């Protein structure tokens, strides 16, 4: 199985939202909707402060509850990988997958009504390119690759840097990692 991961360095991420922008353009996301988003977290009191930005999206979970919940198989793993996609031609819009995603990473495409989400840019990954958000990040804070190979950039970063995932307690085994 191909195990893809995204690794985002919160030390260099500046919260510019370019990743959101690039995703909208690349994937022709309908106006007003988004596949990814940026969260700003500030802790402390002036002047003892810490601010961190986090670019978030579908975690392409190894244990994807959305795929499990889908009654039609429209939500599925792409080509024996952990990339989770929705086949619009099978989707009924029942929204079980939305209810099943603890990360609120899915959305109802307007106006058609099938379910949309971050695809890890499979259409680029299939050609060996980085996802659009990774490729655009002006701070070069984002990395993408296969965890299967221990020498890949993402594997190396995870091996050498302290990191976390969002709410691992969901049990979904998310595959977007944040470097501290």
């Amino acid at each position, binding site marked *: 199985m191909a195990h893809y991961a995204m690794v985002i360095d919160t030390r260099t991420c500046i*919260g510019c*939202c370019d990743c*959101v922008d690039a995703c909208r353009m690349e994937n022709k996301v*309908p*106006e*007003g*909707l*988004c596949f990814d*988003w*940026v*969260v*700003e*977290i*500030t*802790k*402390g*009191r002036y002047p003892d402060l810490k601010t961190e*930005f986090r670019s978030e999206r579908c975690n392409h979970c190894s244990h994807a*509850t959305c*795929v*499990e*919940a*889908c*009654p*039609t*198989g*429209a939500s599925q793993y792409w080509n024996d990988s952990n990339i989770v996609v929705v086949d*619009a*031609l*099978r*989707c*009924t*819009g*029942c*929204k*079980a997958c*939305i*209810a*099943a*995603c*603890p*990360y*609120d990473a*899915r*959305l*109802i495409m*307007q106006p*058609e*009504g*099938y*379910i949309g989400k971050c695809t890890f840019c499979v259409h680029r990954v299939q050609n060996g390119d980085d996802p659009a958000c990774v490729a655009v990040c002006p701070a070069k804070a984002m990395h993408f690759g296969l965890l299967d190979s221990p020498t890949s950039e993402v594997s190396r970063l995870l091996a050498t840097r302290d990191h976390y995932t969002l*709410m691992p307690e*969901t*049990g979904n085994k998310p595959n977007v990692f944040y470097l501290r």
Partner: protein
Amino acid sequence: MQEEVLASVMANPRVVPDLQIWGWQIATYLFLGGFAAGLMVFSGWAIVSGREEQAPFAATRAPLVALGGLAVGMTTLFLDLEHKINVWRFYTTLQVTSPMSWGSWVLLLVMPALALLAIAGLPRAVPPLERWLEGLPFAGPRIIAPVFRLCFAWRRPLAAVNIGLGIALGIYTGILLSAFNARPFWHSALLGPLFLISGLSTGAAAIVLGAGEPRERHLFGRLDLGLIAVEMALVGLFVIDMLNGNALQQAAVARVLNGNMSSLFWFGFIGLGLGVPAVLEAAMWRRAAAPIAMAAALLVLGGGYLLRHIVVATGQQTSWTQLHNQFDPALLERLRGDGPDPDGRF
């Protein structure tokens, strides 16, 4: 102090900022599913246990009512689909991990079983209809009459099947929600039994409403009182389960106990939906008064719907992810033209 805001704007309709994927359509469907399940179980029980004389409504008309209710429920379920042209996709696969997939197949089994039971009872339920149907030229004597006879002859095994499927349907309406780990308020094993008992209770209430005979009304009124007692216990256990759950579950149940859902919960569901009918039904333990029994039954039905509504709504108000927009997300609606001012942009 901790501040967590979105640096971008997130306005994916009905997902963020507020999860509102399922509304009255799903609450109605879950209610009517449970209601139909209750009717199936009691109808089957009346037939299997030989109480057809004692409970004529349950034995003959209840399957019809269940069938109608379920049809309405499936219609609202259909109405809820965002991509309706693909509805047939439910039946091109069985996804073993998906309760909804199982549910759609259960529905597929329930409908014919229920229909056959309804047919078995139809001659006695609506005699003029039977006479008219059997009087139809050609098909009447050759097809319809034999079908009626056949179904009637097989009504006991059919009733047993209906009991089984009814229980499956009733539990499924709860399992559907409780399978969602992502929604802490739904993630309780008690939701299945609770919805099942509530479904039985609404089924019993429907029979009280429909029963023409005091005897039958009295029987199901007393049955219902027992079910309400069990339901109350389950609600209590569910609340305790949530209070002992993770922080998100505690926050969710707080909404119900003293938050935005609390008046619906305490006054609507616990008070009018369970408490008052329980008191009324207890008062009628020895002798039922038709208007009061019917009032109690109506309250039970209302309570049953409220339970689904409260659970469906509250479950969507609590999630793992908390995303706060600093910019007004409604402003993005102007781009899609679905805001308050659809011409806003041009």
